[in-house]
């Protein structure tokens, strides 16, 4: 393993809370580091000793199977010791404050805390109050930076670049942390970003972020290179933001006939879990244009890269 003399951007970074304030260089470093990580996942022996002796704890205050498992496997492939705090069995149910829970975990000695929380800003609050490095695995309706990083990795892998692509994001933009992190990340690379969704699910001020709003799916995807389809939450219908899932799918479900509107070899992303027949048709989900399964593998690779870099690793250390 070679030791690089060049310092990484991550020397100055304690936490990764969102893509809003991450530089292009940092994003490129993560994506470049994820490439060799992906090779490790494909090996027969999926284990490198890089993070041996390091502790990673994941705390999920909101249900998630894939993100938590993805982080856990990413840590394990790098030989870190990983542990999960399952919220249903934790002291949160006993009324413990977030600060106390985090302090307790910190005293057990892990180096990195991976956290998902239903409330916006919770990881920021935790990061200010702990010496552990904090990775935001999704906070409220704010950010989900590792999802956007894996989306960007997937786009680059298939398209060869991210710069200046046209990207449409379809669905519940108002509540989507995936949409926000994608917007922040892609905008840094000059992408033309359009969103489409019911007017009740479009937040204000997107134009100031350089994002074009289309209410209509067809308008949004015309000529785009990438279509990122978001999961629609049933509870949004229950709170009166749109009349029914049937009407939603009528208006916004991505179907094969839509693909002719997009650029040639346009690709389709979905963060999962999918509602087939609601926001995405099975023909699309299972077709050649969809990267949905590849995104899952890429998620592990990107998270390996992030954990590695946050523990002070340098990119040229892992090639060997």
């Amino acid at each position, binding site marked *: 393993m070679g030791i690089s003399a060049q310092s990484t951007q991550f020397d100055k970074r304690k936490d990764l809370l969102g893509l809003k304030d991450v530089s292009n260089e940092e994003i490129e470093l993560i994506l470049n580091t994820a490439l060799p990580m992906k090779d490790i996942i494909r090996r027969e022996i999926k284990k490198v000793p890089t993070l041996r002796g390091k502790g990673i704890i994941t705390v999920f205050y909101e249900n998630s199977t894939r993100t938590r498992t993805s982080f856990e496997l990413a840590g394990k492939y790098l030989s870190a010791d990983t542990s999960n705090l399952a919220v249903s069995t934790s002291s949160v149910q006993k009324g413990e404050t977030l600060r106390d829970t985090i302090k307790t975990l910190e005293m057990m000695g892990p180096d990195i805390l991976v956290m998902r929380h239903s409330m*916006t*800003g919770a990881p920021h*609050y935790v990061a200010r109050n702990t010496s552990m490095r904090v990775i935001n695995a999704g*906070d409220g309706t704010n950010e989900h930076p590792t999802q956007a990083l894996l989306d960007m990795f997937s786009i680059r892998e298939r398209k060869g670049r991210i710069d200046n692509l046209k990207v449409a994001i379809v669905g519940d933009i108002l509540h989507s942390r995936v949409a*926000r992190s994608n917007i922040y990340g892609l905008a840094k690379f000059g992408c033309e970003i359009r969103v489409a969704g019911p007017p009740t699910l479009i937040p204000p*001020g997107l134009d100031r972020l350089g994002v074009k709003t289309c209410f209509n799916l067809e308008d949004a995807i015309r000529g785009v290179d990438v279509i990122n389809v978001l999961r629609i939450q049933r509870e949004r219908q229950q709170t009166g933001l749109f009349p029914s899932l049937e009407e939603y799918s009528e208006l916004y479900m991505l179907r094969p006939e839509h693909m002719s509107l997009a650029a040639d070899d346009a690709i389709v992303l979905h963060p999962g879990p999918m509602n087939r027949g609601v926001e995405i048709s099975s023909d699309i989900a299972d077709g050649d244009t969809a990267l949905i399964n590849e995104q899952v593998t890429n998620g592990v690779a990107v998270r390996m890269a992030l954990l590695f870099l946050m523990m002070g690793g340098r990119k040229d250390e892992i090639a060997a």
Partner: protein
Amino acid sequence: MRLLLKGGRVIDPANNIDAILDVLIEDGKIAAVGGIRHNEDMRADAVDCRGKIVCPGFIDLHAHLREPGYEYKEDISSGSHAAAAGGFTTICCMPNTDPVIDNGAVAGFVRRRAQEVGLVNVLPIGAITKKQAGEELAEMGELVSAGCVAVSDDGKPVLRSDVMRHALEYSRLFGIPVLSHCEDASLSAGQMHEGYYSTVFGLKGIPAEAEEIMVTRDLILARLTGGRLHICHISTKGALEAVKQAKASGLRVTCEATPHHLALTDEAVGSYDTDTKVNPPLRSEEHVAALREALASGLIDCIATDHAPHHFESKDCEYGLASFGISGIETAVAVIMDTLVHPGLLDIARMVELFTIGPAGVITANRATVGTLTCGAPADVTVIDPDLVRTVDPRAFYSRGKNTPFKCMELKGWPCMTIVGGRIVAQDGLVVR
């Protein structure tokens, strides 16, 4: 017992005075304002006020003292200390206590406690409705008899239009204003102002319209009833436009703005510092600009702090779980001086109006005796050092609430002396016992 305030710039809007003058205080009352020679025979303590602004005692129409019921947040003693240190000689306390100030006994308790503490004048505000439940009118006559100067369900809106109508009608019997917290609760379930920054920060927004709909409704009801409406903590451009139109048409309506809504925008929420969480929320630049303009033009009648102290535990948590409110009574004057007066956005004489005759005009029953340096009036005086620079340190607050978004900010222009009934109750930011 005589006190002579020498050589300060005396600004007394009630008497159209703005000049370098002396103020003589005798037996707790203003004895003379003018050029007064100090000599041994006067047996007066002289205070050098050169370079200072000498004003009638400042009045805060909107403070939460939390007692009875929430003494862990604040009590009448700590709140009085905070008010004195902050340059206020008279404060009106909101009735959202436990029990609610919805009857004469609780109002009497508040007044007695305030007199025992004996620092500043505390005028209770009674509830509009019993238990502030928004259903039945509280006994307004009893509240007025017990010393309440207004009624309000502040902390929450009076949702039912019929109840608000009756409150405005019934209040005419006593000539007191109805102080309205304007919020359409079905629109306001959010964490911050709705707009560009709520999108960027990923927090649920509270649209300006949640306030504007209720302001408009209350103005319509004020017209219907002839009652005296006062809009609490006005914070949006649309609400100001509605008030402007109402005033132009001759309606007897007043409104107040808070220092935090005048000084900060919603951009401050970006750090997820829960001390920026307040209701109404910190608004966008456009609204803040409208607010500042309305302050200078005279559309806004007074500055009120909406001093809302909280226990640190209810702020030391996730943004979404944190309580709404800012502990503001100790920084109000300095925030206005620093962000508006010194940059030239607000004339200092106008600022003094906003803290004296402005609020006094809302609680008209006390108009003759507070907010003025008229000879014979109680000697309530606030002295400001416009050049004093100090950094906001919440740990040094007298208030139990350390929740301020102004923490660590260096501000220029602080109250340096507070005199209540002829007695110096605070000097250089410290309470004098």
